[in-house]
């Protein structure tokens, strides 16, 4: 067996009052404690595998109903109700015509998002337990965990944790006398952001280029290896054991009525205490940024916040009080996305920040759909010339006319994701672009965001 790396990471996980009734600790139990990945610690300290044992005594349909009752919405970005997604799987549990697969999406690549790695680092058994429960609910034969290639040390850790679960009899043949066989395999990605999209992930899992598929058929009808498949995010699956332990109805009381439960938020950028915070959905954004993360680290005012990973449109000052939930965020013109908040102070050059973000999408576009492949590249080139003092005023209208031609015209949401930061930056900070064009220099005086040595 490989040695498990024990280098501690330097994240902040907790805050005064964390673990109380107001701020329940369901996902980050044991975070910061490097021994916590052992099955013994998980079982003794954190009610480990209690929910799984209870679930295996229930009818599979009843487990899905419980998850539906909890109202949990997918934590990967789109916010689709997880219980509903499970119920799309074919229900021939008796004659077993289909081989059903469960896939866990651990291809965490959204800039600003770093929540799944914390679960994998400190709580791999909670994910495994969640996968066993989900596997039972949908009567799957195999669970695949697709993890981004950079997380090699976490893959080694998860493999070791899986072996512990096999030794305990929680995985393998005839689990706890139910006559049900289930095992979990880990698949290592190889560095492609697009593989976070579920059908691209399935292609990658099958050993192909990670290009999104045409939908329909949706994965629930034809997914991994042509069989019915459900793809859930790491955080969604890790939330399943607490749901079963508390009961769906009880879990639904946390958060707001249509946005239930807790969520792991990552705060990065210009704040005093960047890190990982678990909060009930609907908590106001400025409470998280100002109170928990300590506000601006530079002493300057905060100018913009990207509230849900790089793909979410930026919010400016007037929306800093927005509750962190899927629906209100959408109503305010942004999206809750993957829960990664990127905070920028008033000395940040929005043109450089937008160029850096668009460069990311241009690099990560899989190249399958023309609007995204060409559009992202053109946006990057136009932004590059604005940033380097060669912009023209009509470039701004050109940029604004590009986004409606990319958005919703591609197979997957990567093109739309690139338009989010572009549109919002142009709408909210147009004067910075204009300043760049007329004065050939930044509107602000902050330090450079782009390096002088070659980009990709």
């Amino acid at each position, binding site marked *: 067996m490989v040695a498990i790396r024990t280098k501690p990471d*330097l994240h902040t996980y907790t805050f005064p009052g964390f673990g109380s009734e107001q701020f329940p600790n369901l996902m980050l139990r044991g975070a910061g404690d490097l021994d916590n990945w052992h099955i013994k610690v998980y079982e003794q300290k954190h009610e480990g595998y209690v929910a799984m044992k209870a679930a295996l005594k229930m009818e599979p349909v009843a487990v899905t109903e419980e998850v539906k009752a909890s109202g949990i919405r997918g934590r990967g970005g789109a916010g689709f109700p997880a219980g509903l997604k499970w119920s799309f799987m074919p229900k021939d549990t008796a004659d077993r015509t289909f081989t059903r697969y469960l896939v866990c999406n651990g291809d965490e690549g959204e800039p600003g*998002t770093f929540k799944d790695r914390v679960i994998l680092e400190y709580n791999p058994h909670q994910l495994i337990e969640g996968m066993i429960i989900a596997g039972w609910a949908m009567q799957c034969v195999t669970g695949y965990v697709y993890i981004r290639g950079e997380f090699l040390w976490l893959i080694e850790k998860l493999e070791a944790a899986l072996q512990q679960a096999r030794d305990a009899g929680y995985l393998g043949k005839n689990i706890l006398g139910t006559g049900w066989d289930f095992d979990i395999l880990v698949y290592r990605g190889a560095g492609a952001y697009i593989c976070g999209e579920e059908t691209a992930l399935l292609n990658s899992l099958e050993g192909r280029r990670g290009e999104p598929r045409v939908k329909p058929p949706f994965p629930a009808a034809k997914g991994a*290896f042509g069989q019915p498949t459900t793809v859930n995010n790491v955080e969604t699956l890790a939330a399943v054991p607490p749901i079963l332990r508390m009961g769906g109805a009880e879990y639904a009381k946390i958060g707001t009525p249509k946005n239930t439960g807790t969520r792991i938020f990552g705060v990065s*950028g210009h704040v005093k205490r960047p890190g990982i915070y678990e909060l009930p959905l609907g908590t106001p954004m400025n409470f998280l940024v100002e109170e928990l993360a300590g506000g601006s680290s530079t002493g300057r005012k905060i100018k913009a916040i990207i509230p849900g990973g*790089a793909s979410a449109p930026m919010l400016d000052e007037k929306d800093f009080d927005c509750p962190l939930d899927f629906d209100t965020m959408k109503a305010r013109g942004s999206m809750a996305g993957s829960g990664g908040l990127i905070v920028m102070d008033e000395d940040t050059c929005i043109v450089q920040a937008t160029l*850096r973000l668009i460069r990311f999408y241009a690099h990560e576009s899989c190249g399958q759909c023309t609007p995204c492949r060409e559009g992202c590249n053109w946006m990057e080139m136009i932004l590059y010339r604005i940033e380097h003092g060669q912009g023209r005023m009509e470039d701004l209208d050109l940029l604004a006319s590009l986004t409606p031609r990319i958005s919703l015209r591609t197979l997957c949401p990567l093109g739309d994701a690139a338009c989010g930061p572009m549109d919002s930056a142009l709408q909210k900070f147009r004067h910075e672009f204009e300043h760049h064009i007329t004065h050939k220099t930044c509107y602000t005086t902050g330090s450079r965001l782009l390096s002088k040595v070659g980009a990709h």
Partner: protein
Amino acid sequence: MNHPQPTETSKEPLAPGQRLPESECKELSPEAIAEIHAIMAKYPDKLAATLPALYIAQREFGFVSLSAMKAVARAIGIPEGHVFGVATFYTMYQKAPVGKFHFSVCTNISCALRGAAQLLEKVCERTGVKPGEGPSPDGLWSVEEVECLAGCGVAPCIQVNHDVYDELVDEDKLVEVMEACKRGDYRPWAE
């Protein structure tokens, strides 16, 4: 999509249709082939072994050269074109030789807000290589600019080979990491 084209160690890239002389076709070791076959057995379709097999080939060959791709295609029994397509799609397969310690520096937005651009310049200055260039003359270092490593809360961060991240890197920390590499505290590339 600006991925570097795969190269052979001492040659220009092969033109489409051009083939390597038979004498230069290297093989994977029998252990590696056995490992690939064991992976194939785990999945319903042998094609699924392509990604893991390319990692094994990268470990054996040092980087994913054209002959490494061909060896993978032979080991799994799938078309060479498929392996080429996969290997060139993903950025973690190095298509050209890299140093013993390969630095991946994230310069995406969260890291950039905390000084990643300046850090990348420092890394290049200290190692003497630029991103995308081959390894340094002593073979120790190579540098790559990468997209988000999911270390945004501890930015700026770098990854040495495929090991654990180094977090909150400033110039002193960078020197420390490079010393640790030389001491042997990091897994060298392809081990």
